């Protein structure tokens, strides 16, 4: 049962939050944030160690009761991503500490409870054994996301963002459900492993690729893949910044992991694979390019990071595409996911810390930050280096793995595309860094960074840098984590 620690912890955390809300314990919200965050991080370490020590092929399901094992898959892959879910939850909790008392007037414990429950949904999503569990988990993550986006209910931007997210998200989920229904109609089962067995080499007809494409609509929306990305900048800009931070890593990574599992387990020998693989490949290419190119023109830092996260979804999709073809595919996905959590949350942490004090999210406002808060400016630079893929950061390790996976998996054009896109991305990340270091601030005087968000940024930056030093244990654990159980 020890392998269920992540799920238990997240569920318990959510329930604690709801209880706190019911009991109207306002002041406890900050304590809840800090304690909850630290617990999550400890849990993430434990889960990470467990994932590392789980040897290949070990049947973890033997350690859990049958009724849970029938719904969820317990393989090292899902354990790795549940550790990631804990990590995300912990860092976002810490990041929100000052935000709770600053911007959120009420319902503070619910805010955190919803984040915990969304992370729980993330964890379930990557462990889903059949398509219906997958859809349910995705809905859990989505609905909590819709509510979280609307949390600043007095601000038009937040409500508009949530409405957009909800309407488009519901549509995407409907498409996905429709696709699932086709698959059920064709195969008679929704269990992923049985699907793989049934589809194996069977003549597809036009319905199966159609069903897969419909499913991809749902996944594509969640991970903000082009052409389903239009909600991303508006929702990221309008939602409360800690929610944006969570949305940029949580649902995205969980969606990608779930997509990998579906593609590898249910459709490994699907005869129409080359067709939709080509479609996925071109979508990955367009996604990363659109994300990077449009980010060049952004003047709001949350929109800039939104487009940057669209681009990173493109890179991660390359790993998903070659998952079955290259031994570096799934390890690349896991390494990049881990690095992405650290680097993106570091970047968003800087934005949260800055807007807590100034309330300004425009890129221009960051002028001269290095003089006002060297810590924030240096953290942004480390995060930017990692996001571009410059050593010695975790982002470089992730990009290296994905490039190796792409080349090994035969996707040479995608490998070149990743390189070219990294070059483009340097400009906009370092545009902000340039403003921070080379311009004079509009308001002089030191900028106070809150303890919670400072801790979150510090941990994220440390994680980014340490990933290179800890490259050996990470390489071992991702190799283990690349085992995706077939049944």
């Amino acid at each position, binding site marked *: 049962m020890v392998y269920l620690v992540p799920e238990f912890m997240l569920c318990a955390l959510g329930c604690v939050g709801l209880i706190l809300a019911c009991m109207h314990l306002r002041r406890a919200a900050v304590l809840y944030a800090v304690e909850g965050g630290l617990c999550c991080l400890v849990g993430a370490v434990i889960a990470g160690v467990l994932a590392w020590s789980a040897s290949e092929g070990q049947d973890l399901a033997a350690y859990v009761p049958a009724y849970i094992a029938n719904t969820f898959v317990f393989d090292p892959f899902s354990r790795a991503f549940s550790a990631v879910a804990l990590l995300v939850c912990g860092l976002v909790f810490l990041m929100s500490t000052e935000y709770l008392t600053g911007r959120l007037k009420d319902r503070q414990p619910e805010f955190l409870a919803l984040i915990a429950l969304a992370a729980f949904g993330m964890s379930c999503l990557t462990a889903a054994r059949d398509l219906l569990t997958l859809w349910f988990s995705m809905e859990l993550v989505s609905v909590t996301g819709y509510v979280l986006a609307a949390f600043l209910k007095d601000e038009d931007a937040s409500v508009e963002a949530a409405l957009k997210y909800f309407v488009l998200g519901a549509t995407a989920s409907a498409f996905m459900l429709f696709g699932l229904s086709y698959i059920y109609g064709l195969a008679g089962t929704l269990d992923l492993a049985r699907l793989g067995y049934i589809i194996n080499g069977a003549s597809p007809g036009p319905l199966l690729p159609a069903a897969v494409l419909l499913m991809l609509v749902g996944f594509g929306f969640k991970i903000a893949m082009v052409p389903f990305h239009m909600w991303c900048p508006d929702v990221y800009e309008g939602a409360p910044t800690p929610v944006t931070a969570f949305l940029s890593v949580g649902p995205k990574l969980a969606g990608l992991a779930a997509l990998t599992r579906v593609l590898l387990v249910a459709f490994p020998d699907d005869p129409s694979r080359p067709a939709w693989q080509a479609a996925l490949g071109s979508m990955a290419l367009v996604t990363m390019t659109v994300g990077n190119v449009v980010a060049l023109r952004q003047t709001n830092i949350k929109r800039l990071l939104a487009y940057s996260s669209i681009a990173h979804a493109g890179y991660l999709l390359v790993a998903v595409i070659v998952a079955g073809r290259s031994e570096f595919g799934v390890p690349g996905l896991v390494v990049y996911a881990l690095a992405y959590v650290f680097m993106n949350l570091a970047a968003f942490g800087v934005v949260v810390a800055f807007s807590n004090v100034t309330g300004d999210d425009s890129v221009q406002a960051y002028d001269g930050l290095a003089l006002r808060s060297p810590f924030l400016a240096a953290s942004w630079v480390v995060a930017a280096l990692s996001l571009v893929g410059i*050593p010695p950061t975790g982002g470089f390790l992730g990009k290296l793995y994905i490039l190796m996976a792409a080349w090994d998996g035969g996707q040479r054009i995608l490998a070149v595309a990743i390189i070219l896109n990294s070059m483009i991305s340097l400009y906009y990340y370092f545009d902000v860094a340039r403003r921070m270091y080379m311009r004079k601030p509009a308001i002089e005087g030191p900028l106070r960074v809150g303890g919670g968000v400072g801790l979150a940024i510090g941990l994220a930056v440390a994680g980014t840098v340490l990933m290179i030093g800890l490259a050996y244990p990470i390489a071992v654990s991702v190799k283990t984590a690349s085992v995706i159980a077939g049944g």
Partner: protein
Amino acid sequence: MEFPLLSALVYLPLVGALIILFVDKDKGNAIKSIAEVASGASVVLSVFVWGLFDNSSGAMQFEERYSWIPMLGISYHLGVDGISMPMVFLTCLVSFLSILYSRIINVRVKEYFALFLLLQTACVGVFTALDFFLFYIFWEVSLVPMYFIIGIWGGPRREYAAIKFFLYTLVGSLLMLLAIIVLYFASAGPDGQRTFDIIDMIQRQPGMRLAPGLAMAVFIGFFVGFAIKVPSFPFHTWLPDAHVEAPTAGSVMLAGILLKLGSYGMLRVSLPLLPQQFAIAAPWVALLALISIVYGSLAAMAQSDLKKLIAYSSIGHMGFVTLGIAAMNVRGVEGAVMQMFSHGLLTSCLFLLVGVIYERAHVRDIDGFGGLGQIMPRYFGVFTFVAMGSLGLPALSGFFAELLVLLGAWESGSYTALAPGIAALGTRWFAYSALAGVIITAAYMLWTVQRIFMGERNEKWAKLPEINALELVCLAPLMALSLFVGCYPIGLLRPIEAAATFWQEHIYRMIGGL
């Protein structure tokens, strides 16, 4: 286990940088002292290492190898041979003198010196790394401090110059990364294990296992990455901006060390790993080198900004390095490495001298000066000494280096064997044309000295203070070394020749002799 001398050499400046981060930012003198101690200690250590170095052996010495990520074939592998040892020493020396000169910086002192020491670590790391993963890490790490140094402490157009430098060099590095990955996948050894190690790859020759088109693409990937750094025409356009806008010490590091990273890469990576592709491309590489020499020198002649003139002269001098490498024979490679060393010394001096005049006059317009020889006679003497070295006067280091390069180009067969078109011109034409570059260099150097120091005394500058002790202390070791190497080149040449011969034998074996 013996003491890891090379690791100490690489990380000593980094330790200094970390210590500086904990010092209060108002204690400028303490920060400067810590930086000088860290960098000075590394100079002493590098002399010590060179003292222990076996100058007659061409193999790798002081090797350190620890397993890092075995499943990817990545290890922490450091080592020096006759080609990298002079470069390591040069890096430590030039860094120390730049840090010494940077005593005049008083704005944001803490960040400046921390960045500088980080830069030194990265550069020494590149020269000693023998595993591609490590090499790439150090290569990229050298970009970041330089970006900030140019961007924060530079001239009026510093932001533009900084991002141009960063972006341009990153493009090259990313192409190099892809090339490294392609080679990795072809590098399976006898036990089926692939490797990122440079020395292992040289033995396994993955370039030969690739299809010719792909191998050439890999070569071009590496070449563009290195050529941007060198900088070779046509990838040189970032250099004038970066040099002009960088602060003096930044320019010294950029010209003295960072440019050498590119040519070192060609020597360590392109030549031994992809010799056949290099042999095919050598005429074109030589042509680009030639254009760099002649165009760089002509462009320098046309400049009115002193710093920009020296920037273009760098392009010209580094063209000689590339020409020597493209000659693909022992003489050419020797000349290339000597020219790297000599250029590192002399151009660092030139930029320090520009700093001297700029600190006093706050302009760099050559035609705006005149008769400074009467006002600042010592500066006149030093400047002339360095200018003579730069144009290749015998008894100073530049002469012997350029001589070896020209000899290598003269007797090189690499242009005839695989490029009949150019062979029709005859290999000698490369040497003749390079000589033209020497003549043009002499022309603009002498003309510059004349315009600034001789002739009518410009009363506007009558009150300029003479060159001071700090500046002389920074210049003296470089000048003395240049004189020493110029008069006694064997001292430097012995290790270089050993290494060049060692590698050349390997290359000739691979391409069946030229």
